[in-house]
């Protein structure tokens, strides 16, 4: 239960006080014990957040029963509030007050819809199964690869327009004059803390790093506050360390983005936050002016992974906020170049690979693939979202099956992953007569074992930072064949990079497999190139080696 680890929720005294001051909770009566508990727990979270934001004001909460499992649609009115007919609508649950610090305290009214509990199907998968857009449905039915090509062209069009539409210019930040000294940190007896801002607590590469940083921060001796910028079920919240030092703040659910800066300021002052680490968390980026102006002693780091075609993604946001950030942690050399080329910064960009040095083998095993091998296994590992282009994966399997027939090779495949494209991939495999040879496996399937048994890993992604699964594949003797996107060239040899354009991508995959299968010298050269790339990557500092010293410094109370 993600909420149970929140100390605010455990702030019993405060919650009791709140309950005692409720003026009208009659609407809760008919809903039964379980929903009542749910609502009470949500109320405790809500009160703790708004009490932090408005410590002295008189808070007037107006609650509704929500029909959204993740978002409370909060609205905050500072000053007198007048009820209108729409405020007492059919969803109206009731209202209560938290008294102010003194009788004349200013009044703040907060209206929220208590999110309902997610349905079992929603807990499993929030995204509806993917379907092609209506006008192009026939195209997808007749020629899925043509549909993919249209989508690819749309992506490239967005990429071309991106530079004009989304400028890559850092926001200006004045340093102020020594005539007016900056604010100083208040005296506090509390142990230093870190605020880690995540995009959300769902499965993903950035989130994996986010969870690692929570662990490292804890190991460094920091108290850890975690917040997510995007409302969601936060399925991984249960995987947060069960420790009194780790607090998950449900700002994603209850706090409008425009109030994050003030909340973060109050939190930092009250909890001795010395460090803020942003992992793809938009409202935290937007809180930076408040932090820099009022809390200049707080150090800010961010981590970025992938440059999106449409708008540059979070690396662009990070660069735009660069003058407010002390350290940019990046996972690939492509991003080092990106910051230099677009934002002219070098010194504060630190490359730290998403690798665990202790988990690495000393050397690489021999490749699973041998020239002329009669049984080949091809794998795909990844979330079944458009980014990974599952339709291209299915088409690649189809083309490889045809190649295998021609060359008298027994081909099998394993697709590991879940997502909105699962049904589409299943249908395509059935349609191409591959359902018996290509297995669809859940996301929790044993990936290292599958890679150890596989000869080839396919990664025809639309975009990538530096796919972790490629490291894993190489370490298991499996040869990655990837599209030439993001920083994939850092791990995948040039001859095994295929074009992004879908048809060329499928052809490139078949050609690469054919050459690896026929040409022993080529296969041997690829192994050497893979060893070289892997050795180079493992020689680079890891994210932990880059971030841990910063965390330790913050934990010891030192500042840059």
């Amino acid at each position, binding site marked *: 239960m993600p909420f149970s680890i929140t100390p605010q929720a455990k702030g019993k005294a405060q919650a009791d006080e709140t309950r005692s001051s409720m003026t009208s909770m009659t609407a809760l009566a008919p809903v039964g014990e379980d929903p009542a508990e749910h609502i009470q727990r949500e109320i405790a979270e809500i009160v703790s957040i708004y009490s932090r934001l408005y410590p002295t004001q008189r808070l007037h909460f107006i609650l509704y029963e929500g029909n959204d499992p993740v978002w409370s649609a909060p609205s905050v009115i500072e000053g007198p509030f007048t009820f209108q007919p729409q405020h007492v609508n059919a969803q109206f649950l009731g209202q209560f007050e938290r008294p102010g610090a003194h009788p004349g305290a200013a009044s703040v009214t907060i209206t929220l819809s208590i999110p309902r509990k997610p349905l079992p199907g929603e807990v499993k998968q929030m995204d509806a199964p993917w379907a092609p857009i209506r006008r192009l449905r026939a195209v997808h039915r007749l020629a899925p690869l043509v549909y993919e090509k249209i989508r690819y062209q749309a992506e490239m069009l967005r990429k071309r327009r991106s530079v004009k539409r989304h400028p890559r210019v850092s926001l*200006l930040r*004045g*340093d102020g*004059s020594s005539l007016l000294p900056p604010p100083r940190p208040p005296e506090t007896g509390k142990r230093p803390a870190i605020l880690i801002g995540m995009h959300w607590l769902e499965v993903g590469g950035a989130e994996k790093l986010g969870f690692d940083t929570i662990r490292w921060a804890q190991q460094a001796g920091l108290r850890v506050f975690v917040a997510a910028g995007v409302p969601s079920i936060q399925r991984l919240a249960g995987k947060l360390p069960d420790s009194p030092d780790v607090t998950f703040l449900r700002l994603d659910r209850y706090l409008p983005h425009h109030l994050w800066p003030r909340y973060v300021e109050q939190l930092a002052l009250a909890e001795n936050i010395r460090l803020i680490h942003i992992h793809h968390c938009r409202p935290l980026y937007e809180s930076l002016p408040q932090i820099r102006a009022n809390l200049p002693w707080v150090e800010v780091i961010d981590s970025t992974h992938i440059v999106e075609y449409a708008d540059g993604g979070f690396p662009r946001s990070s660069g735009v906020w660069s003058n407010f950030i002390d350290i940019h942690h990046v996972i690939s050399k492509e991003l080092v170049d990106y910051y*230099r080329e677009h934002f*002219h910064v*070098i010194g504060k960009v630190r490359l730290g690979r998403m690798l665990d040095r202790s988990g690495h083998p000393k050397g690489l095993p021999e490749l699973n693939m041998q020239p002329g091998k009669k049984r080949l296994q091809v794998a795909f590992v990844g979330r079944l979202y458009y980014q990974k282009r599952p339709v291209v994966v299915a088409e690649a399997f189809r083309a490889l099956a045809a190649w295998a027939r021609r060359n008298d090779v027994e081909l099998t495949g394993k697709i590991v992953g879940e997502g909105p494209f699962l049904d589409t991939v299943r249908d395509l495999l059935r349609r191409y007569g591959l359902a018996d040879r290509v297995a669809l496996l859940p996301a929790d399937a044993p990936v290292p074992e599958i890679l150890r048994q596989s000869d080839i890993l396919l990664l025809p992604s639309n975009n990538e930072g530096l796919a972790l699964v490629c490291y894993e594949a190489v370490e298991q003797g499996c040869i990655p064949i990837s599209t030439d996107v993001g920083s994939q060239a850092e791990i995948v040899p040039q001859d095994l990079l295929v074009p992004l354009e879908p048809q060329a991508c499928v052809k490139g995959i078949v050609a690469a497999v054919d050459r690896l299968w026929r040409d022993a010298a080529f296969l041997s050269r690829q192994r050497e190139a893979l060893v070289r790339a892997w050795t180079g990557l493992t020689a680079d500092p890891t994210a932990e080696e880059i971030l841990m010293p910063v965390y330790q410094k913050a934990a010891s109370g030192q500042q840059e």
Partner: protein
Amino acid sequence: MSALSKTAAVIVTFNRSAKLMKVLDALDGQTRRPDVILVVDNASTDDTQALVEARARDDLSIRYLRLPKNVGGAGGFHAGLKAAYGLGAHYFWVSDDDAYPQPDAIERLVHAITAFEARHEWRPSFACSRVEWIDGTLCEMNTPRPVWDWPRFLHPEAAWALVDSASFVSILIPRWAVEKHGLPIADYFIWFDDAEYTRRLSRSYPGIFCPESRVIHDTPDNRGVNFGLVDEKSLWKFKYGARNEASWRRREAGLMGVLAYAYGVHLQMKGGNVPWRMRREIFRAIARGMTFRPKVVPV
């Protein structure tokens, strides 16, 4: 007078990494080190990028702006000043990649411009250094142009002459001047971009020449800007200069201004006995300048 004095150095470079490193060393040794050092690389093909990156890894004040192609000094100063403005600097120290400021050069420029304001209330639109060649003599090409009342505020203890034109070699420009008058004209590519820009800035108030701030300009020779010196090797630069100045004269003084300029150029080339083929090319460039009307870009 402003209480804010964040200073950004803007250095434009092209394929002169060794000299650029000496400039960065000289900036390191300044008694008043710029808060930001912005190296604008005009797509160098030598080891400039690697050397600047190596320094910038340890020195957070260094910013590196690599332009996708060589847009000339004018384009480089345009892009550099724009980027430095975006960094929030209050003074821009603009210079070449082969000019080494003496240790107190920037401090003296900042002092001069602020002290002048404090004493006389007028705000100089720039302050420029005395630019010396490697042998200590005055660098001919970087001689500022005085205004008619240049000694108005000149005193033995503060020998600041009023000037309305100076080169982009150790010149300090305050933020307000850039805000008011925009950026150097990138389309000039090379030559006369600095003269046009400083004359534009001087519309508010002239700049000041600060002889106590010294910089060594490490050029191959010490030649002035005189059309009598046109030769095969330098013709391309003179053509840019002729086109750009003719364009500026057309803008500021109309057709008569261009004719007067062309006559002056003619006299210089005649005096230098420049071959007729080259003279024709220079006059063609002046003719092109008549219709060349690049826009002034605001920040």
